[in-house]
């Protein structure tokens, strides 16, 4: 395997308390720390392992405006060879997938990895859309990926179990926990990241198919009903008669 492309997103840190502004139409980014999407870190780590020892290169690609560059540099510090930023706001999954597909058509890759989903909009759509746009297989959600020269063996999550598949290159996969352990950049990586190529590419024009109109936060729950540790029978009774869940 020589060339791997890893799609990455810039998302709010997992500890972020999510709030909205402008009558619940905008995500409030005030004071929010943005990070490399945790699942994308897993995809990136596996890509680096697969190309370790000069066996190939890892390009990270992000659709985003200039403010995502800190996250892109982090991916370079972790070990990506080079990076591409498509200079546009990530409008929706279709828009992002279309931009990456256009890039990948002009610059073919043997394997394209993404995280299973982004932790902001929880779309798990980019991998599948890329597969369709490039007319190659897409597998998600994978928990394991081993490669030979021509094909990979992957483990895919299914309800109540797992499935083992072989897939010939090129293909797209959405990665989850188990595929690799995220890598922490070392000082050499961080220094080196500054001089690695980060190419900014202008987007191609494409119609969008969806639009976020507004946001809602989950309804607050009432006060907790505390029950004595010695009265578990009361809890069971309440779950049956009041909550009606057992």
């Amino acid at each position, binding site marked *: 395997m020589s060339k791997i492309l890893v799609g990455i997103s810039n998302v*709010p840190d*997992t500890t972020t308390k*999510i709030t909205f502004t402008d009558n619940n139409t905008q995500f409030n980014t005030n004071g929010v720390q943005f990070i490399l999407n*945790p699942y994308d870190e897993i995809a990136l780590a596996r890509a680096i392992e697969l190309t370790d020892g000069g066996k190939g290169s890892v390009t990270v690609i992000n659709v985003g405006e200039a403010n995502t560059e800190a996250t892109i540099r982090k991916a370079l510090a972790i070990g990506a060879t080079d990076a591409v930023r498509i200079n546009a706001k990530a409008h929706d*999954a*279709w828009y992002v997938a279309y931009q990456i597909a256009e890039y990948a058509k002009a610059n073919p890759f043997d394997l394209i990895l993404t995280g299973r989903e982004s*932790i*902001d*909009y*929880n779309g*798990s*759509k980019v991998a*599948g*859309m890329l*597969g*369709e746009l490039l*007319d*190659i*297989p*897409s*597998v*998600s*959600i994978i*928990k394991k990926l081993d490669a030979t020269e021509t094909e990979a063996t992957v483990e*895919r999550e*299914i*309800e*109540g*179990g*797992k*499935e*083992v*598949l*072989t*897939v010939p290159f090129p293909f797209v996969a959405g990665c*989850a*926990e188990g595929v690799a352990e995220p890598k922490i950049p070392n000082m050499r990586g961080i220094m080196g990241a500054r001089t690695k190529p980060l190419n900014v590419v202008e987007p191609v024009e494409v119609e969008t*198919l*969806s639009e*976020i*109109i*507004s*946001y*809602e*936060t*989950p309804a607050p*729950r009432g006060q*907790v*009903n*505390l*029950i004595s*540790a*010695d009265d*578990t029978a009361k*809890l*069971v009774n309440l*779950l049956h008669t009041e*909550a009606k*869940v*057992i």
Partner: protein
Amino acid sequence: MSVLIYAENADGKFKKSTFEAVSYAKAIAAQNNTSLIAISIGDVAKDDLAALGKYGAEKVLNVSNDKLKNFLNQAYASVIAEAAKANGADVVVLSNSFSGRGLAPRLGVKLQAGVADGAVALPVQDGGKFTVKKTAFSGKAFAVVELTSVNKVIALTPNSYKVVESGAEAPVEDFTTEAKASDFKEMIKDILRSTDKVSLPDAEIVVSAGRGLKGPENWGMVEELADLLGAATACSKPVSDAGWRPHSEHVGQTGIAVSPNLYIAIGISGAIQHLAGISSSKVIVVINKDAEAPFFKVADYGIVGDAFEVLPKLIAAVKEYKASA
């Protein structure tokens, strides 16, 4: 115009999440005054196919083909898209299951459709706008998404729409298809499904435990409680990170998001990342020895106490309840 529902099966059987999706799709068809067509791919008994009519399908397309017996993302997406086109379906509904999440984006591209995955409520159609509420920020919020395309693909979150029985048996028709060879690049080597366990994303009751359990050797009581309640077992991130439980049980922002009727959290403090994955649970019970644990703030019922003392008592109480019920 019509609505097409992909009726997913596991090992040849439809699950509750499929009936939910059929009921949901039926309600969308009713909104639009149009018909609901179901498509099933694989080996499902004729009676089970016809029974989809009970949930609102007016016709069931059956794709029974040796090559399509097991789920293949690319080929299944081609077949469903073909059926949508052949039946003039402008809305395609699926379950937001692991396979549904693989199919929805490919269908979106094939049908030039906006995709709402993780839908939690019926679409609102108002003044030519078609909006769907879906989970966002890993359960910390919801986003209302407008699908601006003519065709639409919606993947419904399990346990977020009630099964509605509205009709009688539906006629079953064979739908034959010549999926193209390039759709068959994936090869299934092995399917390992534990049939005796409740699958976590579909579970109506989830019993989840955290570091408070002190070690993997103490999970016996968690499993016992889950078995008694017909529940799936789950865990917090530190537990799966430590290898006490498999990653597939990790519930939270970077794990699986669940929306059961009942979520029982034992020895989990309730970090914001964990709460994200469980916030759409209908009823939450928290058992923790620390009365200040943040989890109590989002709980409906709580017991302040040590898991090792409370759990055996709770198991006994559930046994007693089961015996009397």
